[in-house]
């Protein structure tokens, strides 16, 4: 058991090292001088030289990489060129809307997907199953930003139930801020529910054919108890994996959705950083999101290890 945890930790460290290297390389593949690109066409040669010096771009690549890794180990993701504040601070300032958007979307996706997936598997081949499978595929085909625009058009423009964009301004209370997250969370949640529904259905189908489910039925146990207590409980492990990974993927979906709804979150920070060529922010955001993904994967593997003694890494 301890050996498995250790192996997995080593694996995670190697993957993170590669992630850091990839993030470092991405900025260096910019054609031309990254400092000149960041500052735009009106920058003077002195400005460009100053930025090159600040970012250490004149040092040899291995030295730059060493300095970058050392900074990371100290928790320093660099300083935003445009905002002139540390990237960690910029990310922290924008974390709230993204965190709650991800949380609500995941909640909506799970609340839709779990019952639909379970019932779909239980009534396999029925009209309900066919409709649910088709709808899940349809939801997976809808761009979340387009669904967001449709929701704005209907619920904000036509019915006036919500604001078309924003997060309620600086003085807005908690509930007002959350009110602004309803439409974006629905847009993102509905689209994400597709994957979880399909996995729940598949996982339930696997389990419903197992011997212990047949035994439970032959003992005369009620159907609801068989499905919920025996089958669903065991089908839940792979489903939890998908829910965990969906959480990490939702951050990606949040980038586009936040832009549609004008939410001041990490997603819109990344988009504005790309438009302004603020590379330290792009690098920092990439690292944090990829790091979260690797960490969630690790936690899921550890959960597997805890619940299933046969699992080894």
């Amino acid at each position, binding site marked *: 058991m301890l050996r498995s945890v250790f192996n997995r930790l080593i694996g995670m460290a190697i993957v993170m090292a590669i992630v850091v290297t990839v993030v470092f390389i991405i900025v260096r593949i910019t054609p031309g001088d990254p400092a000149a690109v960041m500052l735009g066409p009106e920058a003077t040669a002195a400005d460009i030289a100053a930025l090159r010096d600040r970012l250490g771009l004149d040092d040899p690549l291995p030295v730059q990489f060493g300095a970058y890794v050392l900074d990371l180990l100290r928790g320093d993701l660099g300083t935003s060129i445009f905002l002139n504040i540390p990237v960690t601070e910029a990310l922290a300032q924008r974390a709230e809307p993204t965190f709650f958007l991800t949380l609500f979307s995941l909640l909506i996706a799970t609340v839709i997907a779990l019952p639909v997936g379970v019932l779909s598997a239980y009534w396999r081949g029925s009209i309900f199953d066919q409709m649910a499978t088709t709808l899940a595929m349809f939801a997976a*085909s809808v761009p979340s930003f387009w669904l967001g625009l449709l929701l704005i*058009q209907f619920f904000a423009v036509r019915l006036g139930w919500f604001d078309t964009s924003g997060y309620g301004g600086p003085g807005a209370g908690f509930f007002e801020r959350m009110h602004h997250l309803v439409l974006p969370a629905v847009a993102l949640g509905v689209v994400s529910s597709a994957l979880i529904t*399909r996995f729940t259905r598949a996982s339930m189908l696997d389990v419903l054919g197992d011997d212990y489910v047949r035994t439970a039925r032959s003992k005369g146990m009620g159907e609801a108890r068989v499905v919920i207590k025996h089958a669903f409980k065991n089908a839940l492990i792979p489903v939890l994996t998908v829910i965990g990974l969906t959480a990490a993927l939702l951050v*990606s979906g949040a980038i*586009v959705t936040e832009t549609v709804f004008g939410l001041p979150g990490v997603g819109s920070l*990344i988009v504005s950083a*790309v438009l302004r060529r603020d590379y330290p922010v792009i690098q920092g955001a990439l690292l944090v*999101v990829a790091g979260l993904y690797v960490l969630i994967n690790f936690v899921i593997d550890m959960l597997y290890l805890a619940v299933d003694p046969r699992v080894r890494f």
Partner: protein
Amino acid sequence: MSAISSSAAGSGERGLVRRLFSRPTSAAGLAVLAIILIAAVLAPWITPYAPGKLSIAHRLQAPGIAHLFGTDDFGRDVLSRMIFAGRLSLTVGFSVVVLSSLIGVLLGLLAGYFRKLDRPLSRLIDAMMAFPDILLAIALVAALGASAANVVIALGIVYAPRLARVVRASTLVIRELPYVEAAKALGVPTPVILVRHVLRNVASPLLVQGTFIFANAILAEAGLSFLGVGVSPDVPTWGTMISLGRQYLDQAPWIMFFPGGAIVLTVLSLQLVGDGMRDLLDPRLAKDI
């Protein structure tokens, strides 16, 4: 021998299309895809107006007889632009499949066939898959510069690890099969074994995964163009059209509605075909998901 196997492969492909048509859902997907593809190819001859034809007098007109899908803020015909936009969206999607297949197949074959390379390459594949697709694509396009070609390169790099994983898994199995052992014993050079025996047998999972990547690439390209970090806003793609329509959401929702519908139809059809192929080519993989 090779003539026999190639003719067998040919009839297999024809058989696959026939069998796909025998399933109602895949048949519907194939039919819709065929219509979209034909419309994109024949765009200059079938569109009612030139896609860039300005007509300020007819700006923001609702869908009607003269303009079936209405007009945009410059009075351009939304239907005509949408059909032309399909050309670029489909071309970008298909190019991403080709590029990610080239990289993915190479990585997957090397990792699956050569034991020494498996561990480092698998770690690289794992690390690349830790980046959410849109986020990595945005970062790559930001570094390379916004253009259709760079969007293809960025998305090709983003999706290559997914294909590499599929190819590696199949290669690991095929490597141990008796006929590969026999070829090795007969002294057949490794590149020949890889192409003739291994690659041919990973073609099925590759085809299925490629279809899903096609669908994902269309969604991702639209997302990037919508954000303004993909193709130039002046070039009509489904994503740029939605981005433009967003500004007229309250006056002219049709500008963004129809291109979005085109994305949904295309992606849904690709998924239906991909699902059908997966069920037909590898029933063990089907698992009803």
